[in-house]
């Protein structure tokens, strides 16, 4: 029983990181109809940026984190939107999907050739050690990840639901034309979404890199799992991304421990297939009708 609770806590912590990335997927989709298959690389690039600020510039981690947020907002938010999304989105989703797939490969090769092909260590922001609650022993890293990711998600939900800007962003997500008629600056709201996605990616990098290690291909796994999580939870619901992420994280852990670690990596895919067949809109998603 203690093992089970430990597995669920540790799986929820991993799932919370998937959820941060999955949130980015759903936000971009809702605001601009963008599916970004370079989402995993959007986690990898900030990891290397933080390492650069820490190791080369000699800055403390928190300063490196803030600077990386700034650079990521410019590079992975504003520039990505203006240079790739804006010119391509008017031609439909498919050209953009292909372009982001190309971006994913390009960024990986650039880091591999220009920085290093080898894994680099990345220190955790949380202390080593275990928190003992009776027989239950949970690592500070898992607890810290869970708390930080939870705070980010709650703050984001509050921002979206309780601020004028957040509601305007939701209005744009629900109906762009109506939002424009109501006087909302649609372009600005969409840009905000891209900037938020960039910051979420930096936070995910901060949490996941101590375990994954900084490497050019570290984004492959997390990007794919976040995409599955977003589909499983519901691509058009931010709450769905959360549920999908946590579900994938917990089920992976349970499968690894009680069936075999060999099947662990296939859990997200299996769940994805089941959801696509029986509830294609996702567990919390709403059905969207489309005129033909």
């Amino acid at each position: 029983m203690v093992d089970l609770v430990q597995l669920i806590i540790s799986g929820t912590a991993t799932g919370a990181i998937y959820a941060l990335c999955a949130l980015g997927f759903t936000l971009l989709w809702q605001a601009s109809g963008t599916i970004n298959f370079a989402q995993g690389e959007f986690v990898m690039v900030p990891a290397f940026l933080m390492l650069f600020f820490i190791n080369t510039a000699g800055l403390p981690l928190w300063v490196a984190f803030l600077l990386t947020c700034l650079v990521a907002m410019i590079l992975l938010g504003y520039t990505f939107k203006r240079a790739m999304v804006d010119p391509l989105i008017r031609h439909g989703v498919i050209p953009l999907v292909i372009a982001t797939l190309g971006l994913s490969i390009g960024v990986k090769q650039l880091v591999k050739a220009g920085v290093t092909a080898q894994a680099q260590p990345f220190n955790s922001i949380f202390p080593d050690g275990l928190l003992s609650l009776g027989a239950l022993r949970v690592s500070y890293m898992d607890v810290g990840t869970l708390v930080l990711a939870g705070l980010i998600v709650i703050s984001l939900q509050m921002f979206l639901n309780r601020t004028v800007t957040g509601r305007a962003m939701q209005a744009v997500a629900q109906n762009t034309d109506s939002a424009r008629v109501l006087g909302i600056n649609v372009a600005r709201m969409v840009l905000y979404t891209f900037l938020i996605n960039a910051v979420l990616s930096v936070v995910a990098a901060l949490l996941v890199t101590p375990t994954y290690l900084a490497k050019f291909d570290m984004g492959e796994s997390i990007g794919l799992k976040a995409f599955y999580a977003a589909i499983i939870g519901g691509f058009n619901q931010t709450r769905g991304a959360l549920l999908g992420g946590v579900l994938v994280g917990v089920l992976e852990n349970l499968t690894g421990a009680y069936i075999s670690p060999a099947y662990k990596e296939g859990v997200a895919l299996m769940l994805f297939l089941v959801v696509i067949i029986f509830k294609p809109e996702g567990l919390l998603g709403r059905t969207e009708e489309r005129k033909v």
Partner: protein
Amino acid sequence: MKKFDLIPAALLGLVVATGCFAQQGPIPIVGLVELSGTGATAGTNFDNGVKLAVKEINAAGGILGRKIQYTSMDTQSAPQTAKALAQKAVDEKAYVVMGPVFSGSFIVSMAETKRAEIPNFTGGEAANITQQGNPYVFRTSFTQTTAMPKLARYIKDTVKAKTVAIVWVNNDFGKGGRDSMTKALEAQGIKVAADVSTDPGQVDFSAAVLKVKQSNADAAFVYTNEEESARALREFKKQGYDKPIIGETTLTGQKVIELAGDAANGAVAHVGLTVDAPQPQIKAFDQKFQAEYKYKSDHNGMKGYSGMYVVKAITEKIGKLDSKEFAKALHGATIRAKDYPGVLLDVHFDANGDLDRESFLVKVEGGKQVVTATLPPVSPIQ
């Protein structure tokens, strides 16, 4: 008439001259190494080791008066790429091929060098590499069937473990190690309490470590590649695992210590080569490698370096550049470190291309490998 007689003579002269020129040109040696992908750490170190040896040998006048022209090619840690590049090395008429380091890649690529009768050195440790009757295959490290019994004896006599949980990577290297270790443990009367398979490139070891903990084994034996070893050690520490963690060379490599940080402390491994060994020629290598690359070499760097000096020693022994003769001469050969310090330790090659030499037991303490024992060769080197 005389005029026409001159033409074949001139052509013959040209051919002879070209031949002489070729005889004086550099010796082509090709490295098939993992410069990217899951084996990047191992391949890059091996490649750097070879390059350092080539630089030294060339600076000292080369081999038989000829410089070495070393070209390294990236296998991307993929067996099919390694095989294609092995064919390219054959086309480029390599005298010797160094690598790949990964057993899975080597098993696939060695067919090409065998067909062309080119000696091929590997950093791979999978037992089946030298069990296929390929007379052109030579190791730069121990085979698993040599290393594992030494380690099993340590687990029985020093750790005094009665049960062991094995965590292994599901590739040729891992499977070979797991099979050899299982046999070696059984021979010592030690029971395998858990047999945990992991994937190459796996990033999350939480379930694997939990399986080990659930097995309640007296010790864990971890046999994965470098990056995965670091991730596994981090997870062991994260989950508060407090029993001995034992492994082979890949568990305590320099890169693993760098990646795992404090989590590497306490890990024990049997290593064929380590820069922390007390021998003066190894200390000299360590200094030269650090001066050249600004980091500490792991065992793979030492494999590449010593392998290239084996090439020099045997070529000078046969006195000519003949790949077939080279392979024949290396079987059964003994090379001593006093004659060729670059081989680092006295080494003996058997009829299969497996090598034997001293090895070490190391423990990671304070982020450094500390040699706790020097183990003798399986058979005394005559």
